[in-house]
């Protein structure tokens, strides 16, 4: 038998450990928009732009976060099938190729090159993790293709890489972390809680959300305090020591951007340790979980997620109540048997945005595409998205709502939806100051 020494063991264990540990960065959100179908352009006469328009879709398809790749794929594949059924884009067929980022920046960069150089892809969409997206964005100028980000939410992507560094090939379809920090604070400001604590995943997304939440809420409500923090590693098996350390500080409000399986564990264990009871108020729980309404969480936790907690997503299938959104939700349900996830909507919209872009410009020229996209308005299931010129961020609002268990639905629904127009809570170039939230606070409207 081959002898393994201790040194060997540690070497291999370390190699595997590093490989797995960097997988921790997903988390931002899922959502998807759809573009208006432009009927007249579907049958333009003349030669095709290209026999087949190829889209490379990179997401996480392996490991503990592979759900997130699956949820995205449901959206983009639905869009591609719909488009091909209607005759393609200016007569060209659309093909989509899926690649696994394994939640690792280096792997995703390799896949971008392979998709562009070997497969001849014309566009790249997807990307789940903040860590991954910052790596991928850097190579887009070099491969000279457009990237439509459908999930990763770090504000550094648009604020620093696009706006400050001038990487023009990158656009983000999904709401950034403003939803998790700033908009969450708007909701918090309306609740009676004055002592807030957090339980967050211990990486960029958690820190960014908590910082924005604290900054915004302390402007809106100078009377609040931030009393405790707990930082959970990705893959935490036991949250009780974290919950207990936070409860020692007697908070009456909890902000948590936990998501995925860690959220399921956290909610289940928070119920047993009395954390929900500690933040109860007349009208619900001062419990704000920005990505709590993601479809995987709702399907897995279902009625175990207490009613009247405040949750959101990067798109909610219940909002807005437009024909376009209803059509999308129905098509998604018919095809997959599941309600669309937020990243399903963003992926669906990314594909339709590519269609619209080619139909408008009748070219595959990148510079023309970038000029066209800047300041463009896109009608999508999530509502009208305005693509801001400076940072290439699609601006649209996503409400928060309170969880309600309804026996007529397979997953919990939302009530008491609260939204603020996107232009009033998104940060603005040059991203140095926070917007004048004091004034905005008064403008919060209820959209049921």
């Amino acid at each position: 038998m081959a002898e393994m020494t201790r040194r060997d063991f540690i070497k291999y264990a370390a190699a595997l450990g590093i490989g797995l540990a960097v997988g921790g960065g997903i988390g931002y959100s899922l959502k998807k928009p759809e573009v208006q179908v432009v009927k007249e352009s579907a049958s333009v006469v003349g030669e095709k732009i290209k026999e087949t328009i190829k889209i490379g879709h990179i997401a996480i398809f392996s490991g503990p976060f592979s759900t997130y790749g699956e949820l995205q794929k449901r959206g983009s594949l639905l869009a591609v099938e719909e488009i091909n059924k209607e005759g393609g884009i200016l007569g060209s067929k659309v093909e989509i190729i899926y690649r696994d980022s394994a939640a690792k920046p280096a792997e995703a960069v390799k896949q971008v090159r392979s998709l562009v150089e070997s497969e001849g892809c014309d566009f790249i969409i997807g990307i789940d993790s903040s860590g991954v997206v910052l790596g991928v964005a850097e190579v887009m100028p070099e491969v000279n293709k457009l990237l439509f980000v459908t999930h990763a939410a770090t504000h550094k992507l648009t604020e620093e890489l696009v706006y400050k560094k001038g990487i023009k090939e990158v656009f983000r379809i999904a709401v950034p972390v403003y939803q998790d920090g700033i908009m969450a604070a708007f909701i918090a400001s309306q609740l009676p809680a004055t002592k807030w604590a957090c339980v967050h995943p211990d990486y960029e997304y958690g820190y960014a959300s908590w910082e924005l939440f604290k900054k915004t809420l302390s402007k809106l409500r100078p009377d609040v305090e931030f009393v405790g923090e707990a930082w959970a590693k990705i893959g935490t098996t036991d949250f009780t020591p974290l919950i207990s350390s936070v409860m020692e500080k007697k908070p009456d409000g909890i902000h948590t951007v936990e998501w995925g399986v860690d959220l399921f564990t956290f909610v289940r264990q928070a119920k047993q340790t009395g954390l929900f009871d500690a933040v109860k108020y007349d009208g619900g729980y001062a419990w704000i979980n920005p990505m709590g309404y993601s479809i995987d969480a709702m399907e897995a936790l279902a009625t175990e997620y207490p009613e009247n907690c405040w949750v959101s997503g990067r798109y909610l299938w219940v909002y807005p109540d437009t024909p376009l959104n209803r059509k999308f939700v129905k098509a998604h349900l018919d095809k997959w048997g599941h309600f669309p996830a937020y990243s399903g909507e963003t992926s669906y919209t990314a594909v339709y945005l590519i269609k619209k872009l080619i139909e408008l410009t009748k070219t595959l020229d990148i510079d023309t595409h970038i000029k066209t996209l800047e300041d463009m308005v896109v009608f999508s299931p999530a509502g009208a998205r305005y693509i801001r010129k400076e940072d290439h961020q699609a601006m649209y609002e996503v409400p928060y709502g309170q969880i309600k268990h309804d026996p007529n639905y397979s997953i919990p629904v939302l009530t008491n939806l609260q939204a603020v127009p996107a232009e009033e809570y998104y940060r603005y170039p040059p991203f140095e100051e926070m917007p004048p939230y004091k004034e905005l606070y008064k403008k919060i409207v209820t959209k049921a």
Partner: protein
Amino acid sequence: MDLNTIAFQLILGIASAMLYWIVSSGLTFTFGVTRVLNFAHGAFYMLGAYFTLSFFALTQNYLLALFLGAIIVALIGAGCERGLISLIYGLPVPFQLILTFGLVLLFDDLVRIFWGSVPKMMPAQFIGSINVFGRLLPVFSLYLILAGIAIALVLYFLLSKTDWGVEIRAITVDPETAMCSGLNPAFLYATAFMFGSFLAGLGGGLYLPISSASPGMGEHIIIYAFIVTVIGGLGSIKGAFVSALIIGIIESLGALFVPWMTIALPYIALSAVLLLRPEGIFGEE
């Protein structure tokens, strides 16, 4: 901050430690006997959770489902050992790495095919909490502590009081003499691997009712199992128990006193042990 707070946090830390212990015990035991670094241990943990989930759906009896799930995983483990891993016993170490990592990918995808990629939960078990030091201690924390201690006692009994245990120890300490004395190494390696897999499956099944089952769920816990195993000393079961407690407790107290660096504490402990006592607390050079 009063003493009650710290004592309560200690109890929670011990409960957290038990899951690390249960998973590491199988890993270190298998390694001690077969000298195989089994990366697929985390995949067996995942399979334990999924089989428990399915058996629970069939029987509505959690403890029965847990036991059946672990048995199935043990059989799968034995099949892997006989059919695949035994073929590479004589080959260089990287073959173990590649083969067992291949098993991780295989089982992850099989789980996705049979159970789907969206995580699944079973109804919560051990609901409720009891009052300890004026705070609510969840019943499931107690259940983890009891399960961890029970597994430690069973392991102690098996290895010190049964013929199989004596033979396992013999082949671990001195394989050549053990074989000259007529012990059957193939049988012992297969049963040791099977038992290690049983413990992994049991860990997954025990974890299921306080969390969920998801593809790839073993990837996080296996990192901790490796840390625990190295700190305790490779192949040392006693070492795994002690180092799991150390990790669980420092994480728990860390959450109270230094929340911003909780994530780093196990790695700091690992580095300290590697510097001061590279063979691990109970390891032999």
